[in-house]
């Protein structure tokens, strides 16, 4: 932390630099943990390339190809060496560059997570505020109850339910799959993503409503809101001018965590809806012991999560002058 006595003019860059160092360190720790965990699992990445009928010579050749015949320390050095050069390598199984596949998968997972996230906010913010402001009305209580229920329901079950109702019975949306030309045809992608996005949106909204409700309740009981009212602002004016901004500060960090969770948790939704996203890539790669793919996905996911945390932090500072001043040292 920068002390007020610091002569150097501290900037937001120092803060970014520090965050960046943490990011790199986290990535390294994640990489090492992953390396160890993967090797603790019984099995061999060469197996994914072989079938029943392969002879000893073929088994050895496959092990040599993927490097699983090398001593562990040598495998580790190779792995760290590649990582240092930002080289995620090529998949053992498909022979394709890992980066290429991750890039293709991200075009599914990122829109899925972001759209689900946007939908969740669109549902949760008005309902959360409403349930706090009108806590003593029947619908205020109803919203709270329904959101509690929503939290208890697992995401895959919501997905299956939506498929049964909207795809199998009503035939409004596809039950799964992804258009093969991807974003060359936005309409088809959005159509394919409709139910998965709704699934994520509903589940995430359920938990967000609670946070927004309690944040709003805090704001409602605050002194500054009372003061604003005393100075002549109407209730809604005071709420919009002072309440939302103050209430948003804790919500932003929750949102950051929720978004990160959605990106990583897309694995379940992707499976239910047969979407070729990052989650299904990870699942398959672990099953096949395709180390470069597992490492690549983890590397990118860790990066994404850290970046989201970083962005949420920055955003909080932007909307809250008190935090901003602390970070830039401008208060001195």
């Amino acid at each position: 932390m920068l002390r007020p006595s610091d002569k150097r003019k501290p900037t937001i860059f120092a803060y970014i630099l520090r965050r960046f160092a943490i990011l790199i360190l986290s990535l390294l720790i994640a990489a090492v943990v992953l390396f160890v965990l993967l090797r603790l699992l019984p099995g061999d990445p060469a197996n994914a390339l072989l079938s029943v009928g392969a002879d000893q010579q073929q088994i050895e050749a496959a092990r040599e190809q993927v490097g699983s015949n090398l001593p562990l320390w040598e495998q580790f050095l190779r792995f760290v060496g590649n990582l240092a050069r930002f080289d995620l390598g090529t998949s053992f199984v498909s022979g394709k560059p890992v980066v290429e596949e991750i890039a293709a998968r991200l075009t599914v997972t990122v829109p899925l997570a972001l759209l689900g996230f946007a939908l969740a906010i669109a549902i949760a913010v008005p309902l959360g505020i409403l349930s706090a402001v009108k806590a003593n009305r029947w619908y205020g209580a109803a919203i709270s109850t329904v959101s509690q229920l929503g939290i208890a329901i697992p995401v895959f079950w919501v997905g299956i339910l939506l498929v049964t109702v909207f795809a199998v019975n009503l035939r409004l949306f596809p039950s799964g799959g992804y258009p093969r030309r991807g974003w060359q045809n936005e309409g088809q992608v959005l159509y394919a993503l409709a139910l998965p996005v709704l699934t994520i949106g509903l589940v995430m909204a359920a938990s967000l409503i609670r946070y927004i409700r309690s944040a709003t309740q805090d704001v409602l009981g605050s002194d500054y809101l009372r003061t604003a009212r005393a100075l002549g602002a109407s209730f809604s004016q005071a709420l919009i001018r002072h309440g939302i901004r103050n209430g948003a500060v804790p919500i932003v960090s929750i949102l950051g965590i929720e978004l990160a969770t959605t990106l990583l948790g897309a694995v379940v939704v992707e499976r239910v809806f047969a979407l070729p996203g990052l989650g299904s890539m990870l699942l398959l790669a672990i099953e096949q012991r395709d180390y470069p793919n597992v490492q690549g996905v983890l590397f990118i996911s860790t990066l994404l999560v850290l970046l989201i945390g970083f962005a949420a932090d920055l955003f909080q500072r932007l909307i809250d002058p008190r935090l901003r001043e602390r970070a830039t040292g401008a208060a001195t």
Partner: protein
Amino acid sequence: MTGNTIDLGELSRLSRKGRRSILASAALAMLSTSTAALAQDANFDPDASVVIGSLYEPQNLDNTAGAGQGINEAFNGNVYEALFTLTDAGDVTPGLVAEQTISEDGLTYTFKLRPNVTFHSGDPLTAQDVKHSIERVVAPDSKSSRKKSLATISGIETPDDQTVVVKLSARSISLPYNLSYVWIVNDAAKDLNAGEDGTGPYRLDEWRRGSSLALSRNDKYWGTAPTNGEVVFQYFTDATALNNALLTGAVDVITSVQSPDSIAQFKDNPDFTVTAGQSTTKELLAFNDRVEPFNNVKVRKAIARAIDDKKLLQSIWGEYGTLIGSFVPPTDPWYVDLTGVDAYDVESAKALLKEAGFADGFSFKLDTPNYDPHPIVAQFLQSELAKVGIKVEINVITANEWYTKVYKAHDFQATLQEHVNHRDIVFYGNPDFYWGYNNPDVVDLIKESEAAANTDAQTAKLTEANRIIAEDAASNWLYLYPQIVVSSSAVTGYPVNGLNSQFFAYNIKKSGN
């Protein structure tokens, strides 16, 4: 060189379409559930896009680089052709070969290639390409599961562009059959892991890993043009998601239904056709025949008698599937009904155990792959064997672990596994195979069968081997999977047996509207 020329012209003159519809009607005649299958031939859309739903996505696009069974499904006969074709009915017919000559000693095969065949890239098919294609499969870094079966090839010569001479170190009656697994690829093709250059009726349009693989019609195809414009293999990891896709019309046909419970919703619905064909996938309780107590024939026979296979099959597949008494399915030429050998009989199982010195039973660990149907089968075996005093400890492992622990290290007592291959009784002639069955008579019979001068002699030898492994209860063959294809009733003409996981798409017709 004097030799006897076999004229293959007769067969090749019959159009592919003609041949296949004969086979299809023969196959359909055996089935009761597919009444609608031939009804809609009249008004099909020749440019239709057929969406094929499958659970078997290839891992890459090269069958010598460990692509898995999914690549056979998508590419065999569709994108790549071979010198010979293994048809859905199990026959070996000429593919890119127009004429073959076999020397009297059976050691030299001369193949004349079909003229005017071109690869998708436009290059003409030459003998060099064939030589290159065969060498790819037997190369040191080849992962092909068929590599071993081509080991007798000692040299390949190409006297001219249209002639390939294959020399063998020993007679190999299955050479044409084995060559049906060898894709003919352009020797100039670069990236076969993610691309292709074959001669088939379809070319690769696009592969989106984790989702779909699209093939479009090759308009320069040498043979009969496909009856559809494109086929898209849509991949799923979850059987329920796949079934929903068929229910909602997102896919037209499912290549192989693996969730018995889901069949009911399609069966009584006129919008769908359910077809039950013959698979070659066998569910096995494989013992490690090297270790106590399974090195004792009596123990193995006792276990076979203690298990009610019929009840097991019924509880998993209902009315579908077939009981087998050995490793050989009815579609292999050396099939004989051996279900009577060690039939279900608890009392004689107990007697055999007593004779073997295990009157009080014993316990063993059963390595069980973690995917369907193995865990359910393991529980069934546990309760069946408990009745004769045998205690089963179920050890659930992943497919990858299975390969390391059971297949490579032979570190197991007994395991469950599904064996998908066609004509794979040869595994019992290899004492180093994971189950460690070692009977010199069987080893010899299998070796001799390959050196047989004609198919009758081959069939006689393998039938004999088949009887011996059954009498020895080398493994316990629980049942043969059914091969169930479900389609929208707008779609006809797909293969029903899925032999060797192949799914020829070129005769699929989709009614236009």
